[in-house]
C-alpha cells in the first residue's frame, strides 16, 4: 500500500481505473455465466420432464401387461435425443422391465440402486437431480392416473451444458482481457484530465520555490476542485506578490527616509560644528581681551589701585579664565558626541594604569591604593574609553582626597550575562537623592571650594558610554564612597555595529 501511495499520481489513477473496471467486468461476466447455467439447467429439467411424462404415460399399458418389448421400443424412442445416456423402466416392485443404454454408457442398474435413496419422495409427481456429469430424472408410471405401477429412470448427459459453460468462460475471459486492455489505454488517457493540471501546479510550485518568482501563473478553465485549487493557488500568489510589492515599497520608503534622515543629521552635525566653532572662536576672543587687559591694567596701573581694587580685578580675570575652561569643556563634550566610534578590543586595566600613573604624580603628597584585575578586555573605542576612565578615576581620586586611606578600584561584574564595569572609591560619596543630577552637564554636587571642577566630566563619560550603546549608573553613600557602573553594549567591531 505504501509503495502504491509513493507512485506518481498518474500511475495511481491508472491502477485505480484499471482495477475498478476489471473487477466490475469480472463480476458482471461471472453473474451472467452463472445465470445462464442455471437457466439452461432449468430449461433442461423442464424439457426432459415433459419427455419423461410422455414416455411414461405411453408405456403405462405395456408396463401393466408386462410387455418388455413395447417398453423397450418406447425407451429407444428416448434415444433419439442425443443427450440421453440411458433409461429404464421398473415395475411396482422395482424390477427392471426394460432398459436402454447408449454404447459405453453405464448400466442403468446402478442408477436404480442410487435412486433407491430418494424413494421416500415417490409421492412427488417426479424428481430430478444433477450430479457433476449427469442429470437424473425419475418419473412415476401411473395407471388410470391414480395407481403407481412403475418408474421411469432417465439419465441425461451434461456434456452440452458443460461445453456451453466452457465456451462461455473462454469468451468471458477474452472479453475481460480485451476490456482490461482497453481500460488500461483509456485510463492512461483519462487520468491526464486530473493528473496534468496537478503536475503543472507542482511544476509551478517548484519553479516558484527555486526562482522565488511569484509572477508565474497557471491558467485552467475548469470549475471542479482542481480548477478551484488552481484558482486558490493563483489567488495565493497574487496575495504574496502584492505583499512582496508592499514590503519592497515600504523598504524603499524606509531607505529613502533613512537617507533623508541621515542627510538631515549630517547637515545638523555640520551646522553644529560650525556653531561650536563660532562659539569657541567668538566667545573666547572677548574673554582673552578681558583677561589680557585686566593683566595690563594690573601691571601698568597697579600702584593706583588699592588691595580691594586689585582683588576685584583678580576675580574678573579668574572668572574669565574659568569661562574659557567652561567653553573648552563644552567643546570637548560636543566633540565626544560627534567623534566616530571605532570598535576594537581594548584593555581597560591598561588604560586605568596609565591614568593612575598620571594621578600619582599629580597627587604625590598622598598615598592612594589602586586595585584592579590583571586585565579587563572589552570592545570599544580606545581614545573615548581613555577619556571616560580618565574622568571616572580622576573623580575617584579627587573625591577621596580627604579620606585617610584612599582606595580606588577598577573592576567588572557579570549581570545577566553582560559585563558591567565599575570604578569604586571610598571618598566622600554622594546622596542618592541627587543621583539624577550626576550625569547632566554643569551639575555639581559639591561647591568649587570643596572640590574643584566644572561639572562636565561625568556628562562626558555618559556620552561616551551611550555612544558605545551602553548604560551608566551610580551608587553612593555620603561619607563612604561611590561606585560608577557602566556597560558597553554588544558590538565588537565597526562592521557589527553597522549591521545592527
Amino acid at each position: 500500500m505504501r509503495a502504491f501511495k509513493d507512485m506518481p499520481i498518474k500511475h495511481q489513477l491508472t491502477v485505480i481505473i484499471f482495477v475498478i473496471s476489471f473487477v466490475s467486468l469480472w463480476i458482471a461476466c461471472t453473474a451472467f455465466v452463472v445465470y445462464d447455467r442455471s437457466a439452461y439447467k432449468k430449461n433442461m429439467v423442464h424439457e426432459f420432464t415433459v419427455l419423461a411424462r410422455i414416455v411414461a404415460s405411453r408405456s403405462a399399458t405395456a408396463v401393466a401387461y408386462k410387455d418388455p418389448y413395447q417398453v423397450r421400443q418406447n425407451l429407444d424412442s428416448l434415444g433419439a435425443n442425443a443427450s440421453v445416456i440411458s433409461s429404464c423402466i421398473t415395475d411396482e416392485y422395482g424390477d427392471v422391465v426394460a432398459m436402454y443404454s447408449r454404447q459405453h454408457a453405464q448400466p442403468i442398474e446402478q442408477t436404480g440402486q442410487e435412486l433407491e435413496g430418494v424413494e421416500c419422495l415417490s409421492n412427488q409427481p417426479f424428481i430430478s437431480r444433477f450430479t457433476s456429469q449427469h442429470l437424473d430424472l425419475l418419473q412415476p408410471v401411473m395407471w388410470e392416473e391414480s395407481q403407481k405401477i412403475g418408474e421411469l429412470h432417465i439419465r441425461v448427459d451434461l456434456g452440452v451444458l458443460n461445453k456451453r459453460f466452457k465456451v462461455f468462460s473462454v469468451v468471458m475471459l477474452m472479453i475481460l482481457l480485451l476490456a482490461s486492455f482497453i481500460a488500461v489505454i483509456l485510463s492512461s488517457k483519462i487520468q491526464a484530465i486530473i493528473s496534468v493540471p496537478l503536475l503543472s501546479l507542482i511544476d509551478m510550485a517548484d519553479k516558484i520555490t527555486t526562482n522565488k518568482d511569484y509572477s508565474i501563473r497557471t491558467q485552467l478553465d475548469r470549475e471542479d476542485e482542481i480548477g478551484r485549487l488552481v484558482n486558490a493557488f493563483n489567488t495565493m500568489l497574487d496575495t504574496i506578490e502584492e505583499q512582496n510589492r508592499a514590503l519592497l515599497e515600504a523598504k524603499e520608503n524606509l531607505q529613502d527616509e533613512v537617507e533623508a534622515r541621515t542627510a538631515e543629521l549630517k547637515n545638523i552635525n555640520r551646522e553644529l560644528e560650525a556653531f561650536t566653532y563660532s562659539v569657541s572662536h567668538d566667545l573666547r576672543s572677548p574673554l582673552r581681551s578681558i583677561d589680557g587687559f585686566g593683566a595690563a591694567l594690573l601691571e601698568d596701573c597697579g600702584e593706583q589701585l588699592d588691595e580691594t581694587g586689585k582683588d576685584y580685578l583678580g576675580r574678573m580675570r579668574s572668572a574669565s579664565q574659568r569661562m574659557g575652561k567652561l567653553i573648552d569643556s563644552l567643546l570637548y563634550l560636543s566633540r565626544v558626541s560627534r567623534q566616530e566610534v571605532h570598535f576594537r578590543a581594548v584593555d581597560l586595566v591598561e588604560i586605568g594604569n596609565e591614568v593612575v600613573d598620571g594621578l600619582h604624580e599629580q597627587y604625590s603628597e598622598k598615598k592612594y591604593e589602586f586595585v584592579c584585575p590583571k586585565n579587563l578586555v572589552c570592545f570599544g573605542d580606545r581614545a573615548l574609553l581613555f577619556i571616560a576612565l580618565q574622568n571616572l578615576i580622576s573623580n575617584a581620586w579627587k573625591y577621596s582626597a580627604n579620606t585617610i586611606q584612599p582606595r580606588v578600584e577598577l573592576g567588572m561584574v557579570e549581570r545577566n550575562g553582560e559585563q558591567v564595569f565599575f570604578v569604586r572609591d571610598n571618598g566622600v560619596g554622594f546622596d542618592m537623592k541627587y543621583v539624577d543630577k550626576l550625569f547632566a552637564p554643569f551639575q555639581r554636587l559639591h561647591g568649587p571650594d570643596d572640590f574643584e571642577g566644572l561639572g562636565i566630566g561625568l556628562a562626558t563619560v555618559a556620552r561616551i558610554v551611550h555612544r558605545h550603546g551602553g548604560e551608566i549608573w551610580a551608587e553612593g553613600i555620603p561619607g563612604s564612597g561611590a561606585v560608577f557602573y557602566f556597560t558597553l553594549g554588544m558590538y565588537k567591531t565597526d562592521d557589527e555595529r553597522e549591521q545592527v
Partner: protein
Amino acid sequence: MHETYNCVLLVEDNADDVALARRAFRNHPDIDEVIVVSDGPEALEFLFREGRYEGRDMTQQPVVTLLDIKLPKMSGLDVLMHIRGDERTRFQPVVLMSSSKRESDMVAGYNLGANSYMQKPVSFEEFAQMMKLLGSYWGALNKAPSRTDLENYN
C-alpha cells in the same frame, strides 16, 4: 643682543588681540618690531612688496608671520596658500593662530605647509608666554636662508 633686525608680521583683524600681542612682544630680546596688517590681501602685499608696500626695505623680511585663521576678505588658510605658492615666499615661516582648535583647520593648515599651529589661550599669562617663546624661537634659534642663499642654491 642680536645683530640683525628682526621683525614679526602679525596678520590680525582683532584690535584687542593686536594690542595684547604688541604688549606681549614689548621688550622682547629677539624681536625688534611687530608689523601688523589687518587682512589677507594686505599681508600678501607686504610680503610680495606690492601695492602700498612697494619698495619696502628688503632687510625687513619678517622672521615669522603670525597668521590668524579667521580673517575678513580672505581666510588665513587662503593667505597661506598664496604664500606657499609664490617662489619668493615659499620658505617664509608661517605660524597659524586661532582662538579655536578646529581639527579640520589644523589638518588643512599643515597640509598647506604651515610651520606651526597655535591656539590662542584665554589667559593672558599663557598668551604672553606663548608669544615670548615664539619670538625667541623664530627670532634667535631658527635659521632661515637669505635671499642670496636661495638664488645660489635653488
